[in-house]
């Protein structure tokens, strides 16, 4: 698609939205500042593009905080100096969805399709952090449409009124509060079934995992028979653009996305 991604050399984990309880404020901000500083040093003039909702959020949030609070900016740089780094805060921080939607555009995505995902009905589950607090420009927080538009661009049927589109899945609390989180995940999957979905797709890696991998446990608890595939949205693009099931990492699914695999194998 004419876009080249360069890894940030020696990147570190951003602390996600759970590290705060161990790290506090400045240490957490310093982690994201380190990634930005490394990018500014090694990939000067380039945008930072995150594929994970939480990485994007943490990095962008750190940049805003260090911009608004001069003392924090100085403190973060005092910490970074210990690692021989300097944070300027110039690199733009974006989500991959912004690149796909704003830079490339739905029409260009459509033009790339070799195998339209015909006959697939897909619930686009946007979740929280790709959507709030920053979101994608021009989209509403309560009912964003870009994921439905991506689904339709690759030839599948979207469920524009999917009621659990922006429902929280528990995020990191799926680990620490499994019962409470699984109750919410149950609702997300149930609504997809109610709408006749063949599969769920999401732009958030943690949502993808949370909604897919606990279905056994949810079935045990709720007496349901859920077996709903949940794929990362790029897997839809992969298949539609003609890549193999293996290239689309469909063999990594715990719940096989059978219909999507069939299209890939056609």
């Amino acid at each position, binding site marked *: 698609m004419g876009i080249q991604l360069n890894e940030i050399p020696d990147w570190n*984990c951003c602390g996600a*939205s*759970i590290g705060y309880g161990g790290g506090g404020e400045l240490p957490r901000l310093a982690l994201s500042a380190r990634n930005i500083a490394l990018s500014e040093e090694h990939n000067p003039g380039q945008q930072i593009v995150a594929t994970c909702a939480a990485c994007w959020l943490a990095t962008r949030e750190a940049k805003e905080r260090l911009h608004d609070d001069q003392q924090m900016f100085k403190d973060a740089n*005092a910490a*970074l100096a210990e690692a021989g780094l300097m944070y300027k805060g110039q690199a733009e921080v974006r989500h991959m969805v912004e690149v796909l939607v704003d830079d490339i555009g739905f029409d260009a995505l459509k033009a790339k399709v070799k195998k339209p995902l015909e006959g697939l009905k897909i619930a686009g589950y946007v979740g929280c952090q790709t959507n*709030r607090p920053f979101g994608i420009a021009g989209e509403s927080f309560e009912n964003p449409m870009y994921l439905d538009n991506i689904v339709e661009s690759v030839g599948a049927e979207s469920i524009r009124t999917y009621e659990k589109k922006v429902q929280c899945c528990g995020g*990191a609390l799926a680990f620490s509060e499994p019962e409470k989180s699984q109750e919410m995940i149950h609702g997300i999957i149930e609504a997809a079934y109610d709408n006749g979905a063949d599969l769920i797709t999401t732009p958030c890696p943690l949502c993808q995992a949370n909604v897919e991998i606990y279905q056994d446990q949810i079935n045990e608890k709720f007496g349901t028979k859920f077996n709903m595939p949940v794929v990362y949205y790029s897997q839809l693009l992969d298949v539609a653009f003609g890549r193999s099931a293996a290239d689309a990492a469909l063999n*990594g699914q715990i719940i096989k996305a059978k219909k999507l695999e069939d299209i890939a194998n056609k």
Partner: protein
Amino acid sequence: MSDLNKVMIEKYRTSFLREVEANVEEGEWVKMCMQCGVCAGSCPLGKHWDHPPQEIFMMIRAGKRDEVLTSDSMWMCTSCYNCIARCPRGLPITHIMHGLAVYSKRLGLAPQKQPTAEFSQIFWDNLMKKGRVNELKLGLSLYFKDGFGQGVKNAMANQKLGQNMMKAKRMNPMEFFGGHGVKDTSGLQKMIKKAQEIEDAKVQGKG
């Protein structure tokens, strides 16, 4: 009672609001709350919270220091940002909840065995060792956080899940013996140590 807690009680005798403003992440926003209740209706785990954000802000102004700082409500924040997206006054509620949780922990007032507080610390410690998080060790230490017996039970409950994840090559058992990390671990650790020192000094000397 922790020494820092005693110092803080002494220092802010007259105003818990001032204590929060000076020491809690984004605490200076608390006074902007107009008690509309939108945030209270927005928390996904809200029915489990004893005190929703709106109430916590009111309690801070009313000086209910103990009730706020010993509460486990803010530890149930999932960072969903519903509240921030909806608050008519633009309060960074998510960060204030995180900030209150961290501050209560710093003072030794956070509830014992609070699962998210424990998980959060395990996650952070794991991250500090190598700069990246090792899912397998993270999972294992989470199961064993309550001791060995409970750990075996927890691990059994999730055994099928672990096996599924490994079968699907989503969790790498080799991670346990090394796994990925940043190259400049010592730089990263020095950076974090410095950041912690600065933050400690702020909380002790600010106000």
